[in-house]
């Protein structure tokens, strides 16, 4: 369980996040959605402590985040960030094994159990064959899958992902999010694609200008009446085969 209450962040004078409260509940997938610049990534960074909010507080399983050591934080939260680390000379297997770091003491090196966990995580994202290759030689989508494997290898109690479907083809977009959902860990996912959010999240937080425009179960938040003013685009909702689908059409086109 990750809870943030009244957190804020500003870049220069402009507040991006202003007094926002969210809660990621155990065993559920929370999606952060919103238009460009609405502060999705900033909010996620506040949640895992890369940014420290000057107001309010963030707690992980009821422990205030600033009180946890860097290593304890890493044991509780695995994060897939957008940083690519493209210049590194590490191999894919070594990259995934970095995820075992928080579980090892300073003088301990990775053992057989760690290697097996890493191999299993690579297999889960369909990247076993990439193991010996240099990470820097991978395509964007392959890198993304390897970084997800690293986060899985971390075996933390919470999983946070910043646009995990970036660079992925349609099949892997669904596989990766299906995988996250199947884990049953408390997860927070920043997503652009509302249809993916509809299918793989339990709860959503819709960020608008500076704050939360709507929050709650997927079914409630993905209401065209709520979404249209935030995104500035016409939206039609279809409920097909028990799944919710959104279709988009520009307002201008409609007027013409």
């Amino acid at each position, binding site marked *: 369980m990750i809870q943030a209450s009244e957190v804020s962040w500003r870049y220069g004078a402009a507040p991006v996040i202003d007094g926002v409260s969210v809660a990621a509940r155990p065993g559920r997938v929370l999606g952060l959605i919103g238009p460009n610049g609405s502060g999705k990534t900033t909010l996620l960074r506040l949640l*895992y*402590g*890369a940014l420290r909010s000057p107001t309010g507080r963030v707690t992980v399983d009821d422990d205030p985040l600033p009180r946890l*050591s*860097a*290593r*304890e*934080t*890493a*044991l509780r*939260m*695995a*994060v897939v*960030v957008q*940083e690519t*680390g493209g*210049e*590194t*000379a*590490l*191999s894919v*297997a*070594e*990259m995934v*094994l*970095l*995820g075992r*770091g*928080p579980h*090892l003491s*300073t*003088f301990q*090196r*990775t053992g*057989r159990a760690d*290697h*097996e966990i*890493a*191999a299993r995580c690579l297999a889960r994202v369909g990247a076993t064959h990439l*193991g*010996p290759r*240099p990470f*820097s*030689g991978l395509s964007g989508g392959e890198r993304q899958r390897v970084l997800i494997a690293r986060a899985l290898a*971390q075996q933390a109690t919470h999983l946070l992902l910043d646009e995990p479907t970036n660079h992925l083809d349609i099949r892997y977009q669904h596989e990766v999010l299906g995988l996250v959902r199947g884990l049953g860990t408390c997860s927070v996912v920043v997503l652009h694609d509302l249809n993916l959010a509809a299918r793989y999240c339990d709860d959503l937080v819709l960020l608008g200008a500076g704050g939360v425009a709507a929050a709650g179960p997927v079914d409630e938040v993905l209401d065209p009446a709520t979404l249209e003013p935030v995104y500035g685009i016409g939206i039609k909702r279809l409920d097909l085969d028990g799944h919710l689908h959104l279709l988009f059409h520009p307002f201008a086109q409609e007027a013409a």
Partner: protein
Amino acid sequence: MTTVLSETREHDVLGIGARRRRTTLRLAVLTVGLLVTGVIAVGTGAIAIGPATVARILAHQLFGVGDVTWTPPQEAIVWQVRLPRVLLGMLVGAGLAVCGVALQAMVRNVLADPYLLGINSGASSGAAAAILFGAGAGFGQYALSTSAFLGALAASLLVFVIARSGGRVTSIRLLLSGVAVGYALYATTSFLIFASGSAEGSRSVMFWLLGSLGLARWDALLTVAALVIGGTTLCLTVAGRRLDALAVGDETAHTLGVNPDRFRMRLLVIVSLCVGVLVSASGSIGFVGLVIPHLARRLVGAPHVRVVPVAALLGAILLVWADVIARVLLAPQEIPIGIITALLGAPFLLILIRRLHAGGTA
């Protein structure tokens, strides 16, 4: 025996075990190479002494074994003159290489070298003040190295304070403050040379700036260098996994349980101390700290737990050979060792870059 081997291979799902065995083998080969280098280097010079004799003298001195089959002058040359010099060469080479590795991870730039932080410029100013104006004369035989070390210390403190002024030590801030302090102190050194007006003094300063192992003796300096450089190598090897995380990115380090700012600060302290000591002992020997990390990565891959010890051994071997060339090439005159390392290092770096662009990966 066969079953045991195949079993380990079966469980070696990621090939990590195979890589470790390869690294162990390379470390063993390099260690033997270092010993052989040491014996040959000690035997080489104006008076050549055969490797067998050198080995016997060393064994006799260290372990008290073997009969004396050599002349007392031979023993004096081996034990009093050349051995401390070869040992200092090994230490300085290893120190430069591991500090280069650490700095390349800290600023995430493969062109970083131990002199990036301007520490050597500080040491040079201190050395120039000692040579030209007799600064630190109160320290007797250690006047030059003490003065150089104080200069290095001042430079590192300056870099540290400037880099920290924003509260966080980012890689770009570290780079900029290092370059700025380096230029300022380089100007100071030039000014000291200009102001002294002593041609002989300028030549000594120039010689020192290009690096030399001529200060090597069985003295406190050698002990300090051994302790600091040995300690640094050990620290960086132990911190290998955290260096890996930092080298990928600050955000990544953070999510893997490493506080990037705090870690970079600690590294800065360790590296500054180490570079300060080795520059005080030998002047600014260039290119070793830049080239050796690349070579080490080509040999054993990127993880720092393997790169650091391999770089230390490679640096030690390379610097001793560079010193042999510096002593022999224009004998009896000695060439500053920095000239040799730059002449050897530059083409080497170009070859590495070519290979890198040709798609070959370490």
